């Protein structure tokens, strides 16, 4: 024991940081901030450290070369003892980090912690969020599989829409004219050197400000932030009713961080690593690329936006969101902190959560994509074929053969791109069906050139049988009227 103290004193006589560390650790914080709501920031930091450690471990084996990366991931998964577990820790750590950073941000927003004098802490935090998402995206690219390859294609296609500079940005992003070795190398440099380096600097700034400005006091309804008086009020609060951060508050951070690490490890152990999916060979096109979980909402948005809105939304949307986040502490730098007095803040969070949640949910079953194998894999249920005429059954063959099934479901089986056709005959008259099949429209391709008149006749005959038992087919009410020469003594058509 005595030796340890002597070594410690020897070191501190030269380093001279013992006093600073002690002061930082024991600085008083308001008593009610020693709360389970204040543990997300430290947990994000702990998961970041986990990512650094597991990242270095993966770099011992991983080969950042377009030709070899996929093979080295296979070696990590299967050839190296517990390589799969380190990969799984890194992959799940990434998901947890994004989730915790988002939770931290929501908590900070709802507790009004971005208000004076912590505006810059919030702004640095916004950049930390961007970097965390940047790490998630570049990391997905390093898992160099089919999803990564086509994901890069999507990224390049979005970047190319920037006016004037688009093509140049694509070339710089890809490191050349196509997605190839140079692309992976530069994403490796971003993921391993550039973004983590920036992250470390920004995390240090973020922490420094938390210590210097003090942790945000628990928001009390009616305790209003005013620039003139806030700092003095805060110091009085910590003096009157403060506890030293260590050990008064830190034990909750420690417990929560350990719990999160345990959760990451449990997910990694029981659910395993992510992929890699198929080889990054662009000549294998039997693939349906999907982004990782935290970008699924974007995948849905890209599919659902009308074509004319897409480029403006893609280019202007992120800038607007970023500006709004950066402007927030300046526009609402004073006033009420408590969420009980900020209904719009609470509603905004709910709205964003519901929107992102709905988009993510939709991306889970991609109703906008044709089901590429429905026409050959899912047969027409027998109930649609029983007691049908030869022509109608011929139409069912056309229906299946021309791959209508890829976009239209029958009995809930098939694509969801177009409407389900179980009761189409109730909604459309025969003429409308013929017109829709031949001319398309409403986001349906025109099949006029792909169907012979006989095939069209058969197909429409089959479609007309698609209605609930006992319900008649739709009919054009105006037609029967128009056929009558007169209604109420007035001629309907002018001679």
């Amino acid at each position, binding site marked *: 024991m005595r030796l340890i103290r002597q070594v410690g004193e020897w070191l501190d006589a030269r380093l001279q940081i013992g006093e600073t560390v002690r002061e930082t650790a024991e600085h008083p914080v308001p008593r009610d901030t020693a709360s389970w709501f204040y543990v997300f920031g430290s947990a994000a930091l702990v998961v970041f450290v986990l990512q650094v450690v597991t990242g270095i471990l993966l770099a011992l084996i991983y080969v950042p*070369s*377009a*030709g*070899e990366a996929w093979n080295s991931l296979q070696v990590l998964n299967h050839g190296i003892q517990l390589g799969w577990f380190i990969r799984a820790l890194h992959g799940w750590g990434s998901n947890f980090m994004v989730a915790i950073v988002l939770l931290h941000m929501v908590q900070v927003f709802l507790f009004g912690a971005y208000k004076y004098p912590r505006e810059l802490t919030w702004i640095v935090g916004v950049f930390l969020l961007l970097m965390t998402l940047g790490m998630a995206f570049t990391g997905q690219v390093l898992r160099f599989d089919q999803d990564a*390859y*086509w994901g890069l*294609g*999507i990224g*390049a*296609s979005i*970047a*190319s*829409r*920037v006016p004037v500079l*688009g*093509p*140049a940005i*694509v*070339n*710089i992003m*890809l490191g*050349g*004219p*196509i*997605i*190839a*070795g*140079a*692309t992976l190398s530069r994403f490796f440099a971003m993921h391993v050197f550039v973004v983590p380096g920036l992250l470390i600097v920004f995390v240090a700034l973020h922490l420094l400000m938390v210590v210097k400005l003090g942790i945000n006091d628990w928001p009390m309804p009616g305790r209003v932030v005013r620039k003139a008086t806030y700092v003095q009020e805060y110091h009085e609060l910590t003096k009157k009713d403060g506890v030293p951060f260590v050990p008064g508050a830190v034990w909750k951070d420690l417990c929560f961080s350990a719990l999160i690490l345990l959760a990451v490890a449990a997910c990694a152990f029981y659910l395993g690593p992510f992929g890699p999916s198929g080889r*990054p*060979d*662009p*000549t294998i*096109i039997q*693939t*349906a*690329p999907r982004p990782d979980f935290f970008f699924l909402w974007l*995948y849905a948005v*890209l*599919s659902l936006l*009308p*074509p*004319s809105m*897409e*480029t403006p939304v893609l280019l202007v949307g992120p800038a607007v969101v970023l500006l709004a986040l950066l402007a927030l502490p300046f526009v609402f730098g004073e006033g009420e902190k408590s969420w009980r007095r900020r209904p719009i803040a609470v509603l905004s969070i709910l709205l964003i959560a519901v929107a992102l949640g709905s988009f993510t949910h939709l991306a889970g079953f991609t109703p*906008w*994509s*044709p089901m*590429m194998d429905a*026409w050959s894999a899912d047969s027409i249920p027998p109930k649609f074929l029983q007691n049908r005429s030869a022509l109608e059954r011929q139409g069912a063959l056309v229906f299946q*053969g*021309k*791959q209508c099934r*890829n976009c239209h479901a029958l009995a809930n089986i098939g694509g969801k791109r177009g409407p389900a056709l179980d009761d189409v005959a109730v909604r459309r008259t025969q003429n409308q069906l013929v017109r829709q099949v031949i001319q*398309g429209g409403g*986001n349906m*391709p025109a*099949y006029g*050139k*792909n169907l012979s008149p006989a095939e069209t006749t058969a197909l429409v005959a089959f479609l007309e049988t698609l209605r609930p038992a006992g319900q008649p087919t739709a009919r054009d009410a105006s037609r029967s009227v128009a056929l009558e020469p007169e209604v109420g003594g007035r001629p309907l058509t002018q001679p």
Partner: protein
Amino acid sequence: MTAQEGLSRRELLMKMGIFFNGIVAAVLAVPIVRYILSPVAHERKQGFESWLPLGELNQFPAGQTRFATYRNPVVNPWDGKTADIACWVRNVDGQAFQVFAINCAHLGCPVRWFPQSNLFMCPCHGGAYYQDGSRASGPPERGLFQYHYKIEDGRLLIKAGEMPTPGQKTQSSLITLEPPRCV
């Protein structure tokens, strides 16, 4: 000379030092920026866009659309399979051809040809195209990208070398099928 009268000797030397560092930084920045921008300056690279053979003409029967691949003209040994690029060849009538890029004109996913319905369909966001490459439905704003082609010694060649993306309106190797729509 005192500080009150103007610049002290030490201040002058420090400012000169800063100025000198600024010049050195600017001199170093030139090669660094050029290095970073090197992927953009590809017009000087040999063979960036070249005529590449897709195969014998008899591989592409009249009236049909077939899958074909080529090796990108500029490759590094470590590019592996990523330098193998796919495309769709449509032999219109035995005389004229259309060669479509594999990348969807929406966001670049690989489109698949379905001869049964005569449609190209994209697995990502639901884009669909007719057999002549024009837009049929879904989010794409335009038809499929088309390569220039020529026939030499019974072989089909295309001019290729760059991944087509929706932002490139003037790329020399691609035919613009539809004029860009005014928004």
